[in-house]
């Protein structure tokens, strides 16, 4: 059947009624012929505007043209020159607001499905078996990478490719950071993360889990006792933010971090086969409307909730989640209570949540910052009938590293101050990802890790 050239080739996915009962991945990915056909839509623009929309500047036309020519090995080589984690990026990057938003095809119709092609080529390689990377001559310089999330993995991979001796420290028992504790299996299978981490390790990166830098070993000790020449800090977002409303410590109120960590990392959805329990009632309110909120809402449905509400104080236009995630949540039956602000959580006599008191809001005219401030509508209070509340309104940076590292300047909210290259106030220390910017996206963290790696390499060469 002929395909409308103005449109992306659709990607098959599990139907919503079925998928809401399992944790399996939702989209299936392109088969070879669909991928080649989609690659043929690429105009191979000389200037390649798509690349400027990519925080790690993947050579997009090169990898797509190789798919078009069915030269898949060349395609993955072109991809991995800039991006060590394509199977992850192909799944969780907000491509619509990055590479794809710059695609010339987007001017008349839909952009090339860059994200889908990225996922295709990465999956193709994982299936075919990844060749062992060629390792460069060792430089004899040692770098410690703190945190094995997107920023740390990228930084570590890039430094290893340059011949440095890299050790990655992870506080959890499993590497991956937000990729394993935060993003659910149905959006990013943990097997995929494990394979990409394995690739980073095969580049020569050593991994030490169960290591809380700032507690088990301090950054100062990494230099003084462990002989590192440079340290990259990618510890991510930390302490969950709560709403500061009455009833927030009632039973059945979770931070999104806890709710998702129990489910994803600790596999609470397979309780009692796995030991970590989780409590999900019949009616669940998720407060917030970012990707983390969507992930929490969709997870709650899969854990058996009958009604799941996204409660958000602004309108649909301001929702920070990716369109695709909102769309998936809607398809699965998540109910949106917009312009709704929680003001208190009510409990029963045993301390369990039995309802959430909310107010209706309206958006006023944009203020000087251009933002519409939501205002409560008087006498609009009502109680939402819920027995579980998940608070997904963001995090503040984890304090453990800044608290125990000498000479490290931090910002007002506890983020580590770093310049555009990730360089901090302390010589030999770089930082990147959420610990610098506050909560952002996986690809932004990877971009920061990449930039820091380049800068660390220059520093090590000059030393």
């Amino acid at each position, binding site marked *: 059947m002929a395909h409308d050239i103005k449109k992306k080739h659709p990607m098959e996915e599990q139907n919503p009624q079925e998928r809401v009962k399992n944790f399996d991945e939702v989209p299936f990915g392109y088969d070879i012929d669909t991928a080649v056909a989609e690659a043929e839509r690429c105009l191979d623009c000389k200037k390649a505007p798509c690349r400027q929309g990519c925080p790690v500047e993947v050579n997009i036309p090169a990898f797509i043209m190789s798919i078009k020519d069915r030269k898949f090995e060349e395609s993955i080589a072109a991809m991995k020159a800039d991006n060590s984690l394509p199977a992850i990026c192909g799944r969780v990057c907000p491509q619509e607001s990055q590479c794809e938003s710059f695609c010339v095809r987007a001017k008349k119709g839909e952009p090339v499905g860059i994200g889908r092609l990225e996922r295709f080529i990465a999956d193709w390689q994982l299936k075919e078996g990844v060749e062992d990377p060629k390792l460069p001559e060792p430089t004899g310089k040692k770098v410690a990478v703190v945190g094995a999330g997107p920023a740390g993995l990228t930084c570590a991979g890039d430094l290893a490719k340059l011949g440095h001796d890299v050790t990655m420290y992870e506080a959890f028992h499993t590497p991956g950071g937000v990729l394993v504790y935060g993003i659910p299996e149905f959006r990013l299978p943990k097997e995929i993360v494990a394979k990409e981490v394995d690739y980073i390790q095969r580049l020569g990166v050593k991994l030490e889990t169960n290591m809380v830098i700032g507690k088990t070993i301090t950054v100062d000790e990494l230099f003084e006792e462990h002989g590192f020449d440079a340290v990259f800090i990618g510890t991510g977002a930390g302490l969950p933010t709560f709403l500061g409303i009455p009833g927030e*410590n009632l039973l059945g109120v979770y931070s999104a971090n806890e709710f998702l960590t129990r489910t994803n990392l600790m596999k609470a959805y397979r*309780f009692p086969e796995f030991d970590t329990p989780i409590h999900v009632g019949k009616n669940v309110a998720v407060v917030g409307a970012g990707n983390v909120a969507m992930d929490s809402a969709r997870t709650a449905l899969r854990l058996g909730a009958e009604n799941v509400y996204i409660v958000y104080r602004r309108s649909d236009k301001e929702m920070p989640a990716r369109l695709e995630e909102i769309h998936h949540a809607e398809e699965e039956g998540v109910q949106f209570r917009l312009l709704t602000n929680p003001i208190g959580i009510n409990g029963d006599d045993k301390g369990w949540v039995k309802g959430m008191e909310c107010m209706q809001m309206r958006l006023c005219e944009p203020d000087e910052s251009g933002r519409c401030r939501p205002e409560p509508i008087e006498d609009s209070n009502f109680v939402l009938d819920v027995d579980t509340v998940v608070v997904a309104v963001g995090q503040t940076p984890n304090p453990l590293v800044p608290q125990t590292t000498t000479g490290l300047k931090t910002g007002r909210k506890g983020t580590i101050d770093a310049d555009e290259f990730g360089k901090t106030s302390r010589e030999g220390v770089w930082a990147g990802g959420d610990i610098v910017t506050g909560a952002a996206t996986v690809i932004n963290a990877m971009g920061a890790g990449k930039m820091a790696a380049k800068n660390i390499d220059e520093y090590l060469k000059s030393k």
Partner: protein
Amino acid sequence: MYKLVTKEVLSDVSKKFEVEAPLVAKKAQPGQFIILRVDEQGERVPLTIADSDPERGTITIIFQEVGLTTKCLGQKEAGDYIADFVGPLGKPMEFPEEPGRVIAVGGGVGIAPVYPKVKGFHKAGMDVTSIIGARCKDLLILEDEMRAVSKELHVCTDDGSYGHHGFVSDILQKYLDDGEPIAEIIAVGPLPMMRAIVNQTRPYGVKTVVSLNPVMVDGTGMCGACRVTVGEETKFTCVDGPVFDGHQVDFDELVARSRMYLDQEKKALENCRCGGAK
């Protein structure tokens, strides 16, 4: 993997392990805790560091077999391994600002977390009076160890099978009544015991600190599971604690939160792969 080096059965319900974890042992301070996971399907649970030996590279943990994880752990033997062991976490204990008498109260398996603190006070040259208690003589742990680091030691049993017949609070009351200044009271034990002690000392205005052991997942400040209301504020036990001013802690909330997974815990024990329910 972390090796269990020695095992000692302290009572029918409490066991003691020395775990090989050199980096943790090098850093551990009184008041801190670790998080462990028995195996791949295991949950992450916090346990107080009862002692540490930097030379041998070991950490001592003492636990009561109550839930699934502690039951599974209790069935391990010296020479066996557990999957994960992270630490030291939490803030080290602080010494009282004013010099003077310190009274340490330990109930049941709570004597284990009290011991390193008393040892710390003892090392710092302070005089500590310790009051330890258990339901019966067989359940009493660490008596000799506590005696070695305390100026005075009182033992109580609920059933009168050993020492004073009654509660730790009976002995504490005598010290509160005798009027000699007390710089600090540290109380660790089951939540009802800690609640009783802080209610008892509140009218006397004696600073009373408690060490909390709520439900935790990551233990590094990320998940917020261990939140507790102290004063008017929400604190995270893992990064702000585990030691808090007992007079400020909302014990009602804490008791409720500690019971949150009781039903699931029962279910988990029934299905336990280590045969813990037997």
